[in-house]
């Protein structure tokens, strides 16, 4: 227009107005073309109106695209929407007319922008596919599948994009997933059922096996539920009780247990159920003949893999004979204890009697002695010294002395009882024998005895030292006292050991004594020789001491040849 030369302002304004009008028309036309309102344009040309049809604007294609359930759009190189169908506008919830010219980036969520740009750049080299959400104008996102293709449109490259809403596909896959999940569950349940059936078969087998074993047992066998209810009894029970299995299969124990034993047994059973610990009871159960027999009842809980009690398995064993024997033994022991008690009492009474007797006898004999001496001092001296009186006085004094000695010995015996309770120690024989020899030195010397002692190799004995001394003293002094007048006395003291005892022997070549049937030998106040002083108490004491300590004394002798006394100390 510049070559036309200057014009007037009015002309310019008029021209301007005309151009604006044509621009308006052009814009309207573009809009019409863009929106598909028109398919052809009748353009006024110098040679008359000419009909232009839009290139590719085939009505039927456009309809197809417009009515597609997929979104379709054309993008310019900078991502501006050149065209979009109603479906896509619906997806992003925007009015169709507002879509043209906007940037498609606006509908891509922020965290997918990068993915989108990559998709685009790949697409511009040919084509690309992808999945991502689209963000609608109300903010909701829809998962979509995108297919991008480069098209040449009016000599310009554009990008054709088909947008498929995959929400429904997602739903379908969700349903598919649920179905598959359901199927898996079903599978699993069936598997469980199969396993259970297997377990049940195994359990039934085990039960059958158990029952076969329980039936075969010579004992009464039973099972009970974890709560303690009887679930099974074997044949032996019905044979024993005389009840019929069919008539009374779960027969209660309580009716057949002896009423005296029932509370205890029931209590133990309750405790076992509560604690899950083994049950053991003894009770009497009535048999078919009506006899109550002693039974030992034992039961153990049977547990599953989880440690839960699934049942109790128990048995009753007949212990009647054993129990009755036990009772008899207990009774016998009780009797023995009673008679021991009685013997102890008698012994104590005897001791007390001896004490009392010796005390009561001492007073009068002391008085007799005192009175005798008082009497003698009253009598004229020449009378007392007279031939008629003096032997009488001597005999009286001798009797008094004898009486007093007897009382002394009696007292000694009872003192022995007390010494029985003396503490014991391990005592060497050798020093004791030497000590006694020292005590007996005057007698040893006067008797001219040859003493041969060889006990140093002996093990010590567990004994009261005082008692041991008393035993050795009695045996040695007896040997010295009852020596043979015709030959020099020889005494051998030896010792040896047996499995149970240490044995000390005192052998002499003295008078000897009648051993056969000499129950009296060790009896109290028994004397075999009367030519020497003796109390008849010595051997009795030896016997008492030895027996009190669990040992014994033995004698071997031939009259006129000698005697051997052996004392046995328990090892």
């Amino acid at each position: 227009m510049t070559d036309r030369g200057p014009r007037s302002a009015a002309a310019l304004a008029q021209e301007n107005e005309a151009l604006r009008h044509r621009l308006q028309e052009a814009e309207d036309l573009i809009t019409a073309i863009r929106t598909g309102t028109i398919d052809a344009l009748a353009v006024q040309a110098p040679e008359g109106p000419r009909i232009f049809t839009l290139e590719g604007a085939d009505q039927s294609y456009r309809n197809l695209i417009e009515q597609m359930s997929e979104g379709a759009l054309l993008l310019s190189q900078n991502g501006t929407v050149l065209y979009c169908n109603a479906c896509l506008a619906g997806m992003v919830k925007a009015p169709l007319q507002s879509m043209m010219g906007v940037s498609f980036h606006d509908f891509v969520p922020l965290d997918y922008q990068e993915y989108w740009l990559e998709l685009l750049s790949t697409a511009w080299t040919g084509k690309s596919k992808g999945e991502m959400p689209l963000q609608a104008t109300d903010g909701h996102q829809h998962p979509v599948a995108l297919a991008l293709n480069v098209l040449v449109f009016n000599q310009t490259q554009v990008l054709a994009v088909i947008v498929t809403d995959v929400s429904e596909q997602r739903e379908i896959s969700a349903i598919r997933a649920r179905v598959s999940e359901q199927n898996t569950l079903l599978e699993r349940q069936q598997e469980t059922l199969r396993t259970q059936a297997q377990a049940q078969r195994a359990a039934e087998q085990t039960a059958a096996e158990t029952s076969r074993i329980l039936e075969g047992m010579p004992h009464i066998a039973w099972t009970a539920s974890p709560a303690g209810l009887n679930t099974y009894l074997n044949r032996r029970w019905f044979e024993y009780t005389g009840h019929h299995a069919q008539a009374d299969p779960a027969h209660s124990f309580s009716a057949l247990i002896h009423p005296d034993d029932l509370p205890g047994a029931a209590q133990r059973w309750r405790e076992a159920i509560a604690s899950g610990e083994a049950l053991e009871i003894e009770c009497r159960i009535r048999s078919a003949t009506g006899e109550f027999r002693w039974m030992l009842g034992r039961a153990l809980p049977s547990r599953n893999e989880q440690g839960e009690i699934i049942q109790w398995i128990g048995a009753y064993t007949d212990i009647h004979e054993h129990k009755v024997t036990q009772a008899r033994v207990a009774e016998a022991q009780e009797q023995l204890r009673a008679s021991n008690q009685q013997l102890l009492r008698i012994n104590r009474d005897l001791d007390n009697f001896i004490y009392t007797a010796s005390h009561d006898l001492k007073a009068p004999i002391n008085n007799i002695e005192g009175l005798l001496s008082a009497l003698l001092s009253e009598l004229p001296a020449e009378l007392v010294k007279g031939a008629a009186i003096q032997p009488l006085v001597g005999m009286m004094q001798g009797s008094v002395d004898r009486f007093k000695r007897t009382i002394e010995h009696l007292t000694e015996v009872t003192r022995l009882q007390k010494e029985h309770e003396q503490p014991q120690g391990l005592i060497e024989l050798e020093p004791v024998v030497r000590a006694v020899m020292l005590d007996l030195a005057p007698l040893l010397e006067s008797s001219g005895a040859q003493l041969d002692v060889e006990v140093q190799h002996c093990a010590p004995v567990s004994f009261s030292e005082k008692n041991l001394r008393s035993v050795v003293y009695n045996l040695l002094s007896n040997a010295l006292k009852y020596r043979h007048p015709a030959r020099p006395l020889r005494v051998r003291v030896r010792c040896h050991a047996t499995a149970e005892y240490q044995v000390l022997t005192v052998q002499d070549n003295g008078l000897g004594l009648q051993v056969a049937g000499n129950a009296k030998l060790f009896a109290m106040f028994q004397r075999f020789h009367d030519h020497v002083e003796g109390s008849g108490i010595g051997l009795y004491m030896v016997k008492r001491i030895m027996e009190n300590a669990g040992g014994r004394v033995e004698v071997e002798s031939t009259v006129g040849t000698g005697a051997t006394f052996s004392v046995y100390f328990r090892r």
Partner: protein
Amino acid sequence: MPLPPCILLVDDDQTTNYLNRLLLKRLAVADELLTAQNGLEALQMLQAHHQRPELNEPVLVFLDVKMPVMDGFEFLQAYEQLPAAHKAETVIVMLTTSLHPQDVERMQQLKIAGFLNKPLTKEKVDGVLLQHFQHEMPVE
């Protein structure tokens, strides 16, 4: 200490009392010899003599163990419980025949001057007098 002016003999056995009196009289160790037949009599006698100054008070008692009414042990118990004002310093010696370990043990725990085995002899009397009255017997 001078010789005890008065000695009390306590025994239920009259013969024993007679013989002991005889012995003590012959030994001439006391001005007066009293006898009682049991613990109760002895106790009453001791109290009576303590309260009447004109009477000799026994300072030595020979006491038997076994007696009826009140025995030696019971007597000692009762005597111990008397108020100090009611008794003099008295030497009590028990005479016994009992060797029962229980009795011996009991006697050893008593607060007495000593105990002697019966019968009472000149030697035993000498011992008591020497120990408790520092009296030496003249050699006969």
